[in-house]
């Protein structure tokens, strides 16, 4: 009797799990499928759930599509420059905040920390409208410089948000012991603390890249042609007369694959960082 109810329970759990798997994965399956369909097959109703002869030309067209490849390059350049500048500012800031009152003399730690985080909660248009008008005056509208500055605004608060809780988790004893031995603080930090936080720094970098990589609103408002990003270029497949779904799905796959691969690394850091270390 006990065995029978356990079998029933196992069965039910697995059924629910499979339903959830389908719910999560089906849209991805459909994207891959569409990216391998011939245009004439895509507009067929009802659609086919399988493709017997993959139409790889969608991918070939994607790589010869200058708007998209240039968009990818623009996304990569602006994301990575913004990341490095933001890390340069966020690492010392997070170290300082995490160490405040525990070796560093910084008062009002929480309110400083929250100042950084507040930026993630502001409506983007408070920034976009003045940025847009200023960029036109300064001549950096539709340039990667302008886009990078906007992306620092995404990265910096996010990086401080995550890194502070990662630094807080680092034991300080070794760093303190080094300094008691006469090493200056920067040597102790570089030699001991930073290597310990390195996995957290990598996770934070990935999270920042994911956010800027995914940005649409800044690119949409602050670029128009030369500095157009890949996400913006996706929308170029949609015109009044038709949607080039095959190429669009191929582009989505190319754009998403690198971040899906990176996502395996960040999972545990993401939860901890987002909840300010309250949830571990």
């Amino acid at each position, binding site marked *: 009797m006990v065995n029978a109810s356990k079998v029933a329970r196992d069965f039910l759990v*697995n059924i629910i799990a*499979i339903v*959830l798997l389908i719910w*999560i994965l089906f*849209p991805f399956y*459909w994207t891959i499928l569409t990216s391998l369909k011939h245009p004439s097959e*895509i*507009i*067929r109703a*009802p*659609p086919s*759930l399988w493709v017997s002869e993959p139409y790889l030309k969608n991918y070939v067209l994607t790589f010869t599509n200058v708007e998209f490849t240039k968009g990818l390059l623009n996304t990569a350049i602006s994301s990575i420059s913004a990341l490095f500048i933001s890390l340069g*500012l*966020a690492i*010392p*800031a997070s170290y*300082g*905040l995490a160490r405040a009152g525990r070796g*560093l*003399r*910084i*008062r009002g730690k*929480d309110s*400083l920390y*929250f*100042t*950084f985080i507040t*930026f993630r*909660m*502001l*409506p*983007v*248009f*408070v920034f976009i*409208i*003045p940025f847009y*008008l200023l960029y036109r005056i300064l001549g950096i509208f539709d340039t990667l410089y302008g886009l990078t500055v906007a992306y620092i*605004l995404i990265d910096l608060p996010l990086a401080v948000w995550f890194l502070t809780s990662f630094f807080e988790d680092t034991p300080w004893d070794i760093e*303190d012991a080094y300094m008691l031995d006469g090493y200056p603080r920067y040597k102790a930090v570089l030699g001991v603390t930073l290597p310990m936080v390195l996995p957290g720094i990598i996770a934070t970098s990935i999270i920042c890249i994911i956010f800027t*990589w*995914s*940005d*649409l*609103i800044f690119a949409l*408002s602050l670029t128009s042609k030369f500095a157009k990003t890949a*996400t913006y270029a*996706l*929308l170029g497949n949609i015109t009044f007369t038709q949607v080039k779904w095959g190429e*669009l799905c191929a582009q*989505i796959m190319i*754009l*998403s694959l690198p971040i899906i691969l990176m*996502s*395996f690394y960040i999972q545990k850091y993401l939860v901890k960082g*987002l*909840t*300010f*270390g*309250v*949830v571990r």
Partner: protein
Amino acid sequence: MKSHHNGEPVNKDYWTVLPGLIALYAIAIYAFAATIYYSGTSFYLFEQRSEFVGFQNYLDLILWPRFHNSLFLTGVFCIGAFIQLLMAFAIALFLNLNYKIMHLLRAIIIWPMVIPPVAVGLIWKLLLDPVTGPLTYLVGPFEYFGPNTAIWSLILIDTWEWAPLYCLIILAALQAIRKEIVEATMVDGLSFWTKLRVVIIPKVMPIAILIVILRLIDAIKTFDIVYATTMGGPGNASEVISVLNYLLVFRQGFVGRGAALSMITFIMLWVIGNIFLTIVGKLRRG
């Protein structure tokens, strides 16, 4: 241990925080000053004419049906986000079960939220296509982005994208809380309800509030998936606040009114954000 600090000025260590803070403040002060300034003008993008109008833009907004509509839709979206959280909670309880398949689920559950939201919107636009979408197999042709259905379809898309994140957070919270609760419930002589009231709810509540507010802020800021699927249409049927703000400034050129709208959104988010940070502050202290 801290003796090497004696005699040094108290504020010496601020240098670590200052560069980042100054960079953000420089941007923020300019942005706010400019937005407040523009919100008091009749700045029209395509003619570059502008005169000072005081609070006229704010008054116009408050009396503008299209703004009411966007507030209402954003509200609906927030309610959707709340229902989403309840679902996320149920799924988190499920993921907490000890089965092999859960490892697979936990590994892939993060995928919908790491890919660009605009891609999410476009994928679902394809999935929910009234004619060629795969759902026509199951339910027949149906207009998912019609005047009455668009906002609900968007909530569905938003659920697919964001519910997993909250599942993961709740899952982690459940695992953290479980230990403490198990310890606490060892205390004998308490009835189940007393334990629930005295032990479990005080542990769960703060994290629950934190998650709700985090979700609320993101729901109010939703832009990408709406822009990718409906652009606020048909008509104004899915025109949430951020989409209205974008169209107002960049399509119609009403910078002044757009700036006023972004200030109103700011005040809303600021109030919610402050409640949020107060709770986080309390949580971090104890």
